[in-house]
C-alpha cells in the first residue's frame, strides 16, 4: 500500500498542454475518484501515474519515491482498462497468472493466488474459459482479477464500467467498492459518471480542462460546490440555475429574476445589492405544490420515478426541476407553486462563476 503524490505536474502533447501544473495528494488506502467531462485530462493523469505517459513537468511519487522515469512494470501498480484489454488467446487463469508468470513465481503460489482472486470475484468456475466465452461483467471481473493477484501498491481504474449496461454497472460499482473495503489498497478511479463518483469515492477530484476545479468528500462537494461548473456537474437531475440581480424587497434580500419573479434569499446571503448572480437550488430543495408556495410556475412534464415525483416546470421562461416524495398529482400545463429551502440556496457570482458564501 502506498500514497500517491502529484506535484505541479503538466503534460503537453506537442504544443497543446492538456494538464496545467496540477497538484494532488492521494493518501494511503483511500479511494479517490477523478471526475470530469471527456477531455478534462483525467485519463491522462491516470496514465501518468501508471507510467504509460510521461509528465512534461513536475513530479509523480508513489510511496514517497519519485517515479517519473520508472517503467510501469516497476511501479507496483495495477490497472483496469475501460475495454478490459484481456489477453484473448489465454484462459482466464492464464490472464490472471500472466504477471506472476513473468516474474517467475512458483506454480503452486501462482495457483493459490489466482484461486484466491477468483473466489473473491466469483470466477472460480470460469478459470478454464477464454475471454470470448464470458459475458461483459465477467470479463470486467477478469480484468480486476488480473489486477488484484498482483497485490499492488496502487489500483488504477480507467472508466472500467462505461462499457457495461446500466444494471451491471450498478452491480459492479458495489463489487468494486466492496473489493476496496476488503483489500484497502490505494485506488485511483477515473470516470465521467458523477453517480459512480458519488457512490464509490472517499474523495472526489473534479477536473476540467486540465485543472482541478474542486476536491473533497462526495457529500461536501455536493452540498458546497465551489463554482458553477462543479454545481452543474454533480447531481442528477442537475441543480437549477436562475440568473438575476440581488435586491432588497421590503428590507429582505431577494434575487430579482424578472419583474414578477423574486427569488427569496436568507438574511445572511453574502451577496451585495445590485450584484449579478446565479441562484442555484437543487431539485430536492425546491418543493412543488399545486396550490401553496412562494414562486408561481407552470408544470410542463411530470416524471414519477417511484420514490419521487420529478416535476419539470417553467419559471419565468426557464425550465426548472422540483422533486417531492409526496404522492401528489401534478397535471401538465397547470399552475404549480415552488418553494425553495432557503438554507440550501447556492449563490454564484454571475461574472466569475465562483460561489458566494453565506455571510
Amino acid at each position: 500500500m502506498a500514497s500517491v503524490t502529484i506535484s505541479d505536474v503538466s503534460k503537453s502533447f506537442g504544443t497543446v498542454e492538456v494538464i496545467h501544473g496540477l497538484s494532488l495528494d492521494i493518501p494511503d488506502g483511500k479511494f479517490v475518484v477523478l471526475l470530469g467531462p471527456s477531455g478534462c485530462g483525467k485519463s491522462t493523469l491516470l496514465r501518468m501515474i501508471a507510467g504509460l505517459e510521461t509528465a512534461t513537468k513536475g513530479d509523480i511519487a508513489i510511496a514517497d519515491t519519485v517515479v517519473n522515469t520508472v517503467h510501469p512494470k516497476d511501479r507496483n501498480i495495477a490497472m483496469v482498462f475501460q475495454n478490459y484489454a484481456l489477453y484473448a488467446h489465454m484462459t482466464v487463469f492464464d490472464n490472471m497468472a500472466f504477471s506472476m508468470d513473468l516474474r517467475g513465481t512458483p506454480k503452486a503460489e501462482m495457483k493459490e493466488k489466482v484461486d484466491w482472486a477468483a473466489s473473491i470475484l466469483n470466477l472460480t468456475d470460469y478459470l478454464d474459459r477464454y475471454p470470448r466465452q464470458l459475458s461483459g461483467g465477467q470479463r470486467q471481473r477478469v480484468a480486476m482479477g488480473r489486477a488484484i493477484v498482483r497485490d499492488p501498491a496502487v489500483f488504477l481504474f480507467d472508466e472500467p464500467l462505461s462499457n457495461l449496461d446500466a444494471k451491471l454497472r450498478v452491480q459492479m460499482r458495489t463489487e468494486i467498492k466492496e473489493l476496496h473495503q476488503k483489500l484497502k489498497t490505494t485506488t485511483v478511479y477515473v470516470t465521467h459518471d458523477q453517480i459512480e463518483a458519488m457512490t464509490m469515492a472517499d474523495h472526489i477530484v473534479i477536473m476540467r480542462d486540465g485543472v482541478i476545479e474542486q476536491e473533497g468528500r462526495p457529500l461536501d462537494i455536493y452540498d458546497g460546490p465551489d463554482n458553477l461548473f462543479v454545481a452543474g456537474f454533480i447531481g442528477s437531475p442537475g441543480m437549477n440555475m436562475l440568473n438575476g440581480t440581488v435586491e432588497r424587497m421590503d428590507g429582505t434580500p431577494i434575487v430579482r429574476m424578472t419583474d414578477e419573479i423574486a427569488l427569496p434569499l436568507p438574511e445572511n446571503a453574502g451577496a451585495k445589492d445590485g450584484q449579478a448572480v446565479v441562484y442555484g437550488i437543487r431539485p430536492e430543495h425546491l418543493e412543488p405544490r399545486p396550490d401553496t408556495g412562494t414562486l408561481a410556475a407552470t408544470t410542463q412534464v411530470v416524471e414519477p420515478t417511484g420514490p419521487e415525483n420529478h416535476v419539470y416546470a417553467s419559471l419565468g421562461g426557464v425550465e426548472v426541476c422540483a422533486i417531492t416524495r409526496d404522492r401528489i398529482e401534478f397535471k401538465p400545463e397547470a399552475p404549480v407553486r415552488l418553494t425553495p429551502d432557503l438554507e440550501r440556496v447556492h449563490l454564484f457570482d454571475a461574472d466569475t462563476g465562483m460561489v458566494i458564501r453565506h455571510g
Partner: protein
Amino acid sequence: MEPSHASRTLRDIVAVLVVAIFMFPILWWGLNSIKPYSAIFDKDGPVYLDFEPTLDNYRVTMMGVSRVELAIQDGGGTYGAGGASSYDSRQTILDSIIVSVGSTIISVFLATLAAYALSRMAMRGKQHFIFWVLSQRFMPPIAIVIPLLFMFRDMGLRDTHFGLILAHVLINLPLAVLLLKSFFDDVPKDVDEAAMIDGATRWQSFRRVVLPMVRGGVAATAVLCFIFSWTEFMLSLYLTTSIRTLPVKITTFVTSTGTEWGFITALGTTAILPAFVFILLVQRHLVRGLTLGSLKE
C-alpha cells in the same frame, strides 16, 4: 425477408456454375496428365473421359524414368514430341520448396517485427516510411532484374538457393509488412499497455501477448508469400541456372521440336500439391476474430 425457394435454387445454380468455370482448367490439367499422348492430341476432337489412364507422364517427371525407357516399354517408336532435355523434376520440386519455404520464413519474420514497430512505435516520418515501403511494390521486377543479376554475380549469390530466397524476400516484404501492420493495428494498444503494467518488457508483450493475437494475420501473410514465391518466374529465370524452380522448369518442356503437354500437365498437377499442403497446414490459423473477447465489442 427470407429469399424464396426459387431464388435460393437460382443462387445455388449460379454458385455451382461459377465454381465450375474456375475449376475446369485445373480439372482439364489433371485429366491431361493421366492421358496417353494420343488422347491429348486426338485429331477427331477433345477427349474427355474416353481414354485409358496412364501414369507414364508422372513416371518421367517424378520417378526419373527416361523417355527412351518408356519408348522401349511401349514397344518402340518415340514417346512424346520433344527432344532430349531432362524431364526428371524431383530436384526442381525440392528447389522450389527450399526457396518458397525459405523466403516465406524470412519474409514473415522480418515483416512481423517491422509491422509491429510501425504499428506501435512513434517515429519521425512514419507515414513517409510506410509509403516508401509500399512504393517498393509499385516497381516492376523487370526493372531491377538486370542490376540485381550483376549484384548477385559480384556477391556470389547467383544461382544459389539463398540468393533466390533473398530476391523473393525483396519482392514479398513490402506487402507482408503492410498487411501485418493492419493486423497489428487491430489489436488495441491497451493490450500492450496491460501487459507492460503486468510486468512485461516490450519484447515479452510482443512475443507473448500481441503476436499470438495476430496469428491469423501471420498465417494469411505466410500463405501469400508462399504462393508468390512458388509461382514466381522472372527472377528465378534470370538469377539461377542449375537451380530450377517449377515455373522455370516447366518452360523448358516447351522445346524446339514440340511442347510436352503430358509432362507439363503432370508436373503442373504435382506442383499444386505442396502449395495445397502448405495452405492446409496454415489454414487452421486463418480464423477470423482471434481478438474476440479481448475487448468489449
